[in-house]
């Protein structure tokens, strides 16, 4: 029986399959089912600093004439923050009490101070690791790319200075020097990088002439982007790599590991296929390993990373002429 265990962020996981951050990782009931299905670890739903401002706004709408309540409401966002944080920390400690697999907390903040504040509390609550879900959309056009990038490092420094549990960072692909960013982040003190998070994508409803959200779940084909970059960076980073987005089949999971992933996160697929998908992933992964004579994950991890592959250029250029030149419609 092949050994599916891996090390991720210095933690021992019995499987490379991690249930990534989503609304499914927000309740003890679901977390228990995820563990029962064989996940190696679980990433709790992100705490969003945004939520506090939204709730604060909501409170204002519900209370009466504001002038007379202004002193009461002036710092009320702190109360909401405390309440949200309290619930999250409770989730962490409850999860730690019932699960034996590692529990990774996740935060997403707007202002850099808050990252450190939340991180410390999360560590005290007993989380095994912390995933920083870094969602900094570059819409502030006055910021240069350097400004933007240095924010990432400010936050990482703030957090890693404050806590001793392992920290991982989930980032987007939108950097002009993505490879450089990933490499530099891997040397900044984090223990893992997760490629990639998914942005909220607004769409336009032409009937109502309004903007609405869309694209909540990933598609199968979304895996190609993280696959490429995992392969390119697998041997150039000083930390673990995990993939996120687009793992909808066991085959894709194998691909990710071949490219160089230490772990594979699944979220959207769990919505569509249920927690049984985790069992399927583990089962089929083990079968594939048996067929290909691999005893442990380490023996084939990164075998097809760019550095190790026969034709490294495949990962870099689209090989436009060769691949697309031959494409004829109808074929």
């Amino acid at each position, binding site marked *: 029986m092949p050994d599916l265990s891996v090390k991720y962020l210095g933690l021992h996981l019995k499987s490379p399959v991690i249930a990534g951050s989503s609304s499914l990782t927000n309740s003890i009931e679901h977390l228990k089912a995820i563990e029962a299905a064989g996940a190696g670890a679980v990433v709790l739903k992100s705490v969003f600093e945004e939520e506090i401002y939204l709730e604060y706004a909501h409170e204002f709408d519900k209370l009466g004439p504001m002038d007379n309540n202004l002193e009461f409401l002036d710092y009320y966002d702190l109360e909401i923050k405390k309440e949200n944080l*309290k619930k999250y920390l409770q989730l962490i400690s409850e999860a730690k009490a019932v699960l034996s697999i590692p529990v990774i907390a996740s935060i997403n903040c707007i202002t850099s101070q808050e990252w450190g504040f939340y991180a410390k*509390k999360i560590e*005290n*609550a007993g989380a095994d690791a912390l995933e920083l879900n870094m969602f900094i959309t570059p819409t502030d056009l006055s910021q240069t790319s350097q400004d933007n990038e240095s924010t990432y490092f400010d936050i990482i420094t703030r957090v890693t200075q404050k806590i001793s549990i392992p920290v991982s960072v989930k980032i987007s692909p939108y950097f002009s020097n993505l490879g450089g960013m990933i490499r530099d982040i891997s040397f900044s003190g984090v223990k893992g990088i997760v490629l990639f998070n998914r942005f909220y994508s607004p769409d336009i409803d032409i009937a109502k002439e309004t903007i609405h959200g869309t694209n909540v779940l990933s598609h199968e084909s979304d895996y190609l982007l993280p696959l490429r970059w995992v392969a390119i960076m697998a041997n150039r980073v000083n930390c673990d790599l995990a993939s996120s987005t687009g793992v909808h089949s066991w085959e894709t999971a194998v691909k990710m590991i071949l490219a160089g992933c230490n772990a594979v996160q699944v979220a959207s697929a769990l919505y569509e296929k249920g927690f049984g998908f985790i069992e399927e992933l583990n089962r089929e992964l083990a079968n594939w390993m048996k067929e290909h004579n691999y005893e442990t994950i380490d023996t084939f991890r990164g075998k097809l990373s760019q550095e190790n592959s026969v034709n490294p250029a495949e990962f870099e250029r689209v090989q436009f002429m060769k691949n697309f030149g031959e494409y004829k419609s109808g074929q």
Partner: protein
Amino acid sequence: MNKIVEKEYFSDKVIRLVVENQKIARSRKAGNFVILKIGEKGERFPLTIADADPVKGTITLVVQIVGVSSAKLAALEIGDCITDLVGPLGKPTDIELKGTILACGGGVGVAPLLPIVEAFKKAGNRVVSVIAARSKDLIILEDQIRRWSDEVIVMTDDGSYGRQGLITAGMEEVIQREKIDECIVIGPAIMMKFASLTTKKYAIPTQASLNSIMVDGTGMCGACRVTVGGKTRFTCVDGPEFDAHEINFDEMLMRLGGYRAEEVVANNKYFQK
């Protein structure tokens, strides 16, 4: 109302008072405390209710003279009235049949321990009590504790009575020889800290009754705040009893010294008279 009807000296520093207050006597449960004020300009300060008689309409307070307010209370005689008395405050002790209870009282902490010992015994528990003080004349209520305990161990620091040693030595002895289902510790904060560390080693669930500084006692000001399990709690409304192993005793001890300078000045002024 609030008239003193009985006064007894346990020692020259420790006094038992019985005070008339029908309403508090009726509503009181073991573990509750009151806030008192002596005189117009007096300070508001807390004292655990050591006993209550709902029929007679009286409550019993045991006070140790440690500063101005406690001295003023101790100076009252039978027939005098306490200017202001309010209660019962705080959450009452959770009394249940648990099995064997280890009840530990240090110094004047034995007074609030007594009703708890009685209640646990009446609930069917086996009760082993360890009471301790610096010296013989600071050991109080031994007979009353004996009445409601299956066994009593008395410790004094100087060996002038009972066995010589700290309360933790007495506790260790009991823990080594029998299974303890719950422990309750009441006494000076430093004593409770070490008693709690003792039971923590053996994972014995332990409750400590805190004596934080208070002003109003009704949850209004936050002067009595302590950190329990990483969260801020108010001793006056969330306590005074908390899970001892979760209490940040070092912070609590630090906060008890918050007005040390002012206390020294006040004591000098008062006790010179």
